[in-house]
């Protein structure tokens, strides 16, 4: 019997882990592989499953996903086609449950993620290398993967783009394209921007000034919209045109006030807000998000990816929308996706082989075909690109514009493994409001953002590196 004394540190760690794990596990359903007998019992509800299969992966697969993307009907269909495998669905609107499950050591087998989370997950060792599965798959062939899947390839948390494959996109869009509302331009007596010409950000700001309609203090037509929840990603892409980064080489610091180009970017977006050309914390969107403003016909230009084409035309905007190429900040054409929403498998998956069957099905079979045909994004597989709808004039125009953007083959943005997905934007909006109200200066705003973000990086880095 060992007589080694447990240190205070280890005792606290153990106690915390046990207590925390026990309580958190209470929130999580235990992802224990379901025995075949149980599966057979479940399967008796469906004639096709009266006998449990004896070959191939079987059991329960826990999937953390979006209920609109993985519907109960789809799950029923999968289970009828794959007797022996059941899917236990957890809605992604329960992030605390996901955290609890991960912390308890029983993570969902498959998890819906966005690209900015990948480096952080890798740094924590939370996701599984799927390279062997991809290499052996006849459904998801390596040479059929769209370049956007490179967000799920990594040599290390700080080197994304090549290396092992940890997942793939469900679909994606080059996210920097701009949708223009023709009527807003007509009302302002301006020609609609030419979709065959690449605008610059400076030109878009000038256009926004010309097309915005402001009566007294009221904004009746906003000039320019962007996803302010992704402001850091927009800056990262603009800086990449110049070969620069928002972060230091080791990702331990954000560099804002020390880089003139980043200051210019901050100034650009500050001015858009100050002049009420874009929704901002002092003058928020009436629809909760700029995309809603565009579809309501009160926003002249909206920077969103191809996916937005599926909803850009509404009763208010039908026949009045055109998709423009991604603007350039410094003359270098780039148009990466900045979300790359997809799926990964947990390193601690209880049932990886069965989970891979679900993964293949969701990303390479009927659900993927349906998604491609829906037009809500570019499919993750090259072979499905032609399924993207091209029926209406607007769809045809968008598809042509899309092909030009895809041809750029822009490499992925390298996200910071030590930073939460919305940490930067939270600070940006908090500080921007104060700067717009004049309680702090523009320079103070930049300093505060740097301090906020660097503190968050330091906190996460300390946890990850122990």
């Amino acid at each position, binding site marked *: 019997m060992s007589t080694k004394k447990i240190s205070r540190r280890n005792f606290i760690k153990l106690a915390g882990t046990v*207590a925390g794990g026990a309580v958190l596990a209470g929130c999580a359903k235990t992802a224990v592989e379901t025995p075949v007998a149980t599966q057979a019992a479940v399967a008796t509800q469906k004639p096709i499953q009266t006998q449990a299969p004896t070959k191939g992966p079987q059991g329960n697969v826990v999937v953390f996903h979006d209920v609109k993307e993985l519907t109960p009907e789809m799950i029923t269909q999968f289970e009828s086609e794959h007797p022996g495998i059941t899917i236990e669905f957890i809605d992604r609107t329960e992030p*605390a449950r996901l955290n609890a499950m991960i912390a308890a050591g029983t993570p969902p087998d498959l998890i819906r993620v966005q690209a900015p989370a990948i480096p952080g997950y890798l740094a924590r060792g939370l996701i599984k290398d799927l390279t062997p599965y991809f290499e052996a798959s006849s459904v998801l062939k390596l040479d059929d993967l769209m370049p956007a899947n490179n967000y799920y390839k990594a040599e290390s948390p700080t080197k994304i783009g090549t290396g092992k494959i940890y997942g793939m996109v469900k679909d994606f869009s080059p996210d920097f394209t701009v949708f223009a509302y023709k009527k807003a331009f007509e009302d302002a007596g301006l020609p609609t921007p030419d979709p065959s010409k690449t605008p610059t950000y400076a030109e878009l700001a000038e256009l926004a000034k010309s097309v915005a309609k402001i009566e007294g203090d009221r904004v009746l037509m906003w000039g320019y919209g962007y996803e302010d*929840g992704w402001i850091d990603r927009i800056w990262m892409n603009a800086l990449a045109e110049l070969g620069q980064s928002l972060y230091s080489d080791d990702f331990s610091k954000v560099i804002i006030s020390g880089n003139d180009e980043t200051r210019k970017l901050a100034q650009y977006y500050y001015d858009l807000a100050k002049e009420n050309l874009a929704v901002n914390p002092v*003058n928020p969107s009436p629809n909760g*998000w700029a995309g809603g403003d565009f579809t309501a016909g009160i926003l002249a230009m909206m920077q969103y990816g191809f996916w937005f084409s599926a909803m850009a035309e509404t009763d208010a905007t039908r026949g009045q929308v055109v998709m423009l190429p991604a603007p350039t900040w410094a003359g270098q054409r780039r148009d990466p996706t900045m979300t790359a929403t997809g799926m990964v498998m947990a390193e601690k998956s209880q049932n990886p082989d069965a989970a891979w069957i679900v993964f293949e099905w969701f990303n390479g079979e009927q659900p993927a075909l349906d998604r491609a045909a829906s037009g809500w994004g570019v499919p993750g597989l090259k072979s499905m690109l032609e399924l993207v709808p091209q029926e209406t004039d607007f769809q045809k125009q968008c598809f042509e514009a899309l092909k030009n953007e895809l041809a750029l083959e822009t490499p992925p943005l390298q996200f910071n493994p030590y930073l*939460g997905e919305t940490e930067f934007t939270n600070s940006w909006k*908090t500080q921007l409001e104060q700067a717009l109200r004049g309680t702090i200066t523009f320079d103070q705003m930049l300093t505060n953002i740097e301090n906020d973000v660097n503190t968050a990086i330091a*906190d996460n880095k300390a946890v990850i590196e122990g």
Partner: protein
Amino acid sequence: MVAARLRLTRTQRRTITFYLFISPWLLGFILLTIIPLIVGFLISLTNYEGLSVINLHFVGTDNYVRAFNSDADARFSLGRTLMWGVYNLPAWLILSFVMALILNQNIKGHGFFRTLYYLTSVVPIVAAITAWKVILDKNFGWLNGFLSIFRPGTAIGWLSDYALQGMTMIAVWTGLGAGMVIFLAGLQNIPDELVEAARIDGANSWQVFRYVTLPLMTPIIFLQLILGLIGVFRQLDLPLVLTQVGLARGAVPPRQIYLYMMHVYRQIFISNRWGYAFSLIWLLFIGVAILTLVVFYTEKYWVYTERPEEGS
């Protein structure tokens, strides 16, 4: 077994029955309150980030020190919460009390009006806020649209420039019904003979209210004050729902309504600082407990209670 049960005295049986009856609540209280409190305290002494326990460390009181020394936003959000209390609590207490007084009169259709005013509390908070946002939006809201008839281009930021006042208005509106019902129940417990006696003694309506109704209602006011006070510090849903489309997209509430619980929420769900967030929650718990004790201490000075006289 039967023999053993027979040996129990009546008192023992009653005691066992009592504990059996309260055991579901007691178990729930222990499992869902006491244990989470203890676990929360333990977590507050660590660097727990919510995702991994691999590098979990004991950090002692570092999180608590951080809250006092280097987190300006924690202090700011506490200040905003106190300000929220200053706006919301008196407005809610006074208006719901006044409403109850009005609806306690024997006027025609008082049952209908009681139901009508209580409906505000039945409407789900998200639906209520969505409706209010339509009315109060800066550029396209109905209210500013109406005001623009008289002063074209009016764009008052009810939910941004005056977010605290706007949120107070919504909170009072949604909470009025519940507050009113409790006050109404209290008012209806006031014996008629006391009011009649005061009338016979020549008291006018104000004097009846001041010297009969108000003193007898102080226990209810006290209860409402305590509940309201705790509610002020726990407030999260209103700023959360008012914040555009929620924090998932990195939305943040206007600075005016950046309440303490919003700061805690941000620490957990945006910054993954679970350990630190739990320390903030514990500090809040202690602060609210002290404040509640202070209010309880003042009870003897202003709350009317019917206690048996000494020696009786």
